[in-house]
């Protein structure tokens, strides 16, 4: 497929990149391109200029300080999945990164690109919302609760670029997705975290137009962080997605399945990779 015509540039500094994006309203930042290039092939976007961020070293890498993990926006999924320090600090996040798409995509795709796109079937939004992460941009710091605003929508303004994502290290956390067996995209997923201050956060992805928190489960798990708290839990289908892969009622059913498996991971760190759809 021939893509729509665009120009390409690879700035050497962050200031240069921001100036280019400011000067060209129809420009798009290019991270790994694993979503953007297919989008361009389908002509669902028509940027005049791609500003490739790959040379900006300050957007790469994982830092772990006192109780906080900071991940650069251009850090590839494969780096996040295989970072020993991250695997020790937030194993559920490393596990999630290792289950995104497939190895070739994980070598190119980035956390900043994924969350800026906010595909409802993406993995990272669940981790950011479930862990209560903070998105650091060139203008401000945005709490995950305010960052993901809707279907393919975020709080980012024109010219605003994600630089890093900061995750508070939780006491324990778990993630489970029921992935479409052909595409690997999330049909329904759930990220559960008990924070360092013993509050509980539950984020659901894939099921609705945008990742969302599940207050009922958060309250139940705050009172009793055990499988017993989920006994009898059933999500309703209101507001959930229906498509050729799954009805809203089926996705509602999967929320309970994903939540129970995510909790099991939080309670007992797992071995292995993504859970297959067969339940």
């Amino acid at each position, binding site marked *: *497929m*021939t*893509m*729509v*015509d*665009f*120009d*390409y540039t*690879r700035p050497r500094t962050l200031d240069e990149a921001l100036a280019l994006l400011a000067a060209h309203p129809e420009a798009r930042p*290019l991270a790994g*391109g*694993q979503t953007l*290039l*297919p989008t*361009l*092939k389908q002509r669902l976007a028509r940027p005049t200029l*791609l500003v*490739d961020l*790959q040379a900006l070293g300050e957007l790469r890498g994982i830092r772990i300080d006192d109780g906080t993990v900071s991940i650069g926006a251009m850090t590839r999924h*494969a780096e996040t999945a295989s970072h020993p320090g991250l695997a020790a600090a937030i194993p559920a996040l490393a596990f999630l990164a290792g289950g995104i*798409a*497939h*190895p*070739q*995509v994980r*070598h*190119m795709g980035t956390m900043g690109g994924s969350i800026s796109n906010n595909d409802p079937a993406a993995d990272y939004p669940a981790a950011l919302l479930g862990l209560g992460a903070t998105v650091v941009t060139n203008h401000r710091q945005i709490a995950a609760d305010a960052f993901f605003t809707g279907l393919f929508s975020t709080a980012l303004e024109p010219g605003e670029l994600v630089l890093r994502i900061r995750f508070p290290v939780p006491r324990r956390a778990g993630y489970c997705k029921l992935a479409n067996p052909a*595409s*690997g995209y999330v049909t329904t997923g759930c990220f559960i975290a008990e924070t360092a201050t013993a509050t509980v956060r539950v984020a659901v992805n894939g099921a609705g137009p945008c990742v969302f928190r599940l207050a009922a489960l958060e309250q139940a798990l705050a009172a009793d962080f055990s499988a017993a708290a989920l006994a009898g839990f059933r999500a309703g289908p209101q507001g959930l997605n229906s498509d050729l892969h799954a009805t809203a009622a089926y996705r509602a059913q999967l929320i309970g399945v994903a939540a129970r498996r995510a909790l099991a991971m939080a309670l007992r760190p797992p071995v292995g*990779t993504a859970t297959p759809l067969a339940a």
Partner: protein
Amino acid sequence: MPLRPITITVNGIPRSHAVEPRTLLVQFLREHCGLTGTHVGCDTTQCGCCTVHLDGRAVKACTTLAAQADGGEVTTIEGIGTPEKLHPLQQAFRRHHALQCGFCTPGMVMQGIDIIRRGQAGDPVTIRHELEGNLCRCTGYQNIVDAIHDCARQCSRGAATAAAGQSGLANGA
């Protein structure tokens, strides 16, 4: 848009061409370099027939701009062995009858080398997970998995990383 000159070191040889910015890496390899071993199966990031190594890591050349690889090093199926001296993984594919029509094979071999390089070829279950981005419509995968597993057992991971080129396994290792 004006053509942009780019230089990619392909199989150890710098290749410079002026290309449209929208040129895909796979188009650069096939149409500008004449290296048609890298196949286009789906053009939608699903089948893995276009898998090459960019700076030592397996990527899909149909979902990478040539411009993104400007200044980088790419290894294709043409760069790992010759008909006279096959790469150890190619030899393993032959031993195990790991191909039928052969269309997916270049991508399977390049991905297989990457799997071995990362130490993920120790057991068939892991190899199958690692092949999630590569489709084969002929073989049922069993013999592909066997070939990668067998090659990994025969070639130490050291040989895989200390290899000729950045691709992994040295010829005849």
